[in-house]
């Protein structure tokens, strides 16, 4: 009887606490980390998914370069990338587990461990492809709100949780109503603006409206930019074996 009484008290206490939390989050809004997470879920469907990505690199002094990759994501820390195009680069597959990276070199037939520094190539680094989520890697805070084209945006300040991520700091513009990202600015350790990314062309894919085109401008090299396009996004489950470095040659 005493136990039932105690249990009843707990229930009585819990119900209002739940309502208070719900009320508070509605009235006072989401935390910066929650906003960042919601924006992440708009950029990709989360947990386990497949992306067919195309990267077009534009440089004033060179011909346009097109690359295509298939990206297999499982959870926050397992990503495998298969090179589709150019045809000659096929087989050069990439695996990321946590912050560890392997690159399969078909010429020598082996997966080679590489450092995070070695992954930075072009305006779109391998880091951008293998690690699309900001949450987990960055701690967010709300800098301010801004009105752009009549719409209100949070400006989030994302600070790297450790030194192993691609960028030290990111400023992230997220729509206040629907949490769709508008743009992001990427900064170096010395707070120098490295790249600016614009999230454009929202389409209804895999259960939500998602940006399928990201235009990434290099702020250090004038005229250098990359366009990252998601040609396909699907929720899919993958067996663990494809995230094993010894499977990279069969990916």
């Amino acid at each position: 009887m005493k136990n039932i009484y105690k249990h009843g008290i707990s229930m009585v206490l819990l119900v209002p606490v739940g309502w208070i939390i719900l009320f508070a989050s509605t009235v006072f809004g989401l935390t910066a980390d929650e906003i960042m997470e919601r924006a992440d879920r708009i950029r990709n469907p989360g947990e386990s998914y497949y992306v067919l990505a195309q990267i077009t690199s534009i440089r004033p002094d060179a011909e346009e370069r097109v690359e295509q990759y298939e990206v297999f994501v499982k959870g926050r820390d397992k990503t495998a990338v298969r090179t589709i195009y150019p045809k000659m680069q096929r087989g050069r597959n990439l695996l990321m587990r946590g912050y560890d990276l392997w690159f399969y070199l078909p010429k020598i037939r082996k997966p080679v461990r590489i450092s995070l520094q070695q992954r930075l190539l072009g305006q779109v680094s391998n880091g951008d492809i293998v690690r699309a989520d900001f949450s987990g890697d960055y701690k967010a805070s709300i800098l301010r709100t801004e009105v752009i084209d009549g719409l209100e945006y949070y400006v989030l300040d994302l600070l790297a949780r450790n030194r192993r991520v691609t960028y030290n700091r990111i400023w992230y513009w997220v729509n206040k109503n629907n949490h769709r990202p508008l743009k992001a600015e990427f900064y170096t350790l010395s707070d120098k603006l490295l790249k600016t990314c614009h999230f454009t062309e929202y389409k209804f894919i895999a259960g939500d409206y998602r940006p399928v085109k990201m235009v990434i401008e290099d702020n250090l090299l004038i005229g250098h930019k990359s366009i990252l396009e998601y040609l396909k996004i699907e929720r899919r489950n993958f067996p663990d074996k494809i995230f094993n470095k010894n499977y990279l040659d069969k990916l």
Partner: protein
Amino acid sequence: MNAKALISSLATILVYALPCLAGQNISVTGYLRNGTDYRLSGATGFVKSKYSIFSRLNTEIMPSLDLTLAGNFSYDAIFGLRDIYPSEVKDDQEFVARLQDSYVDIGLSNLNLRIGKQQIVWGEAILVSIADIINPQDLREFILSELEERRIPLWSIDAKYFFSNLSIEGVWVWINEFNKLGVEGSEFEFQAFENSSSSAILVSNAPKKPTNSIENSELALRLSCYVGGWDVNFFHFYGFNHNSTPYRTIANAPEPEKVIVTVNPEYERSEVIGITFAKTIEPVVIRGEATYTFQAPFVTSKISDADGIVKNGYLNCVLGVDCPFFKNVEAYLQLFQDIILNYNDGIDQDKTRTYLIFLLQSPMSGRKIDLKCEFAFRVENNDYFVRPQFTYHFSDNFKSSLGAAFFGGSRDGMFGEFWDRDRVFVNMTLSF
């Protein structure tokens, strides 16, 4: 061309012909290459003008069943242009056709089977890998040819079972192949059995090869783990030594004060255990490999030894560091050491050999120019090899390299042996 080469040629032609016959679901990649070498030391002049074609075809026959066929064919025009090599070398190297990696991949849940002619690569090290012990190598161009052309694929079954952070791999090789060495008089002919006395008549017999049978097949097992950011692999190989063991007998010759030294080389069983590891400690990657060979054969100069061979434990280890520096330069540094255990003075090979191996290169950043320099140096006797190389990418699929290779140091050293084979080279490669 012998019958084996003819069969390989036909298989190679088939590899090229299939894309024309088949449908759309086929990927064909490869390259056309010309490699021209000009020797700078010894007898100077052009020593190679080799045209090669390599093609690899891959298709999915059905879900979880893939087919790969690859072959290469080369023709060295130098044999028609200059008369500098004996006819045996011409027969051996003018036309070369080989069926390369040709296998089926079968995926069964967490098990993957690869059946056919294949390369099994277990090393972690970038430059010199001592853990790549399963495939023999074609050393007719010493270490100057690309690794993909040098490694000889083997008819085998490779079974891998995957767990989340672990994989177990078993290999069964049912047709043995051995290192392919340059014949007598070739550009990179290795030193023959050393005859230390002018009073000896040397008779060298052809190496005795094991017959292909179940009893003579090779087995290998590997356990790979990924723990706390470390890649660690343990392996065991029960196969054949890829080099023959030069057993010798000594008998009195009919001429007075002379002896007949008969060399009877034999390919023998070899048992090796090993470990490899790799770990990233930003911004560097460290890699290591160690192998222990049970009863490895070594040549002894002791006349009293009945067959001229002693067998000892043999330890090999490699420790390497990859270090990117500045923005566009990568450096790979490796320390290689081998140690003969229970060493005795009669053994020809030194008890310990230590090499420093260094590679400096611009990264694959899509730039037009790549610079690369390899350097290997033996600490004990200055045996060395240097290969600087400049590559210009005319387009995504056409590149040309200009480089040089220098060998020096002790005349009986791994590189010093080829002290008069320094060269400049030009390679042009068109990929498709």
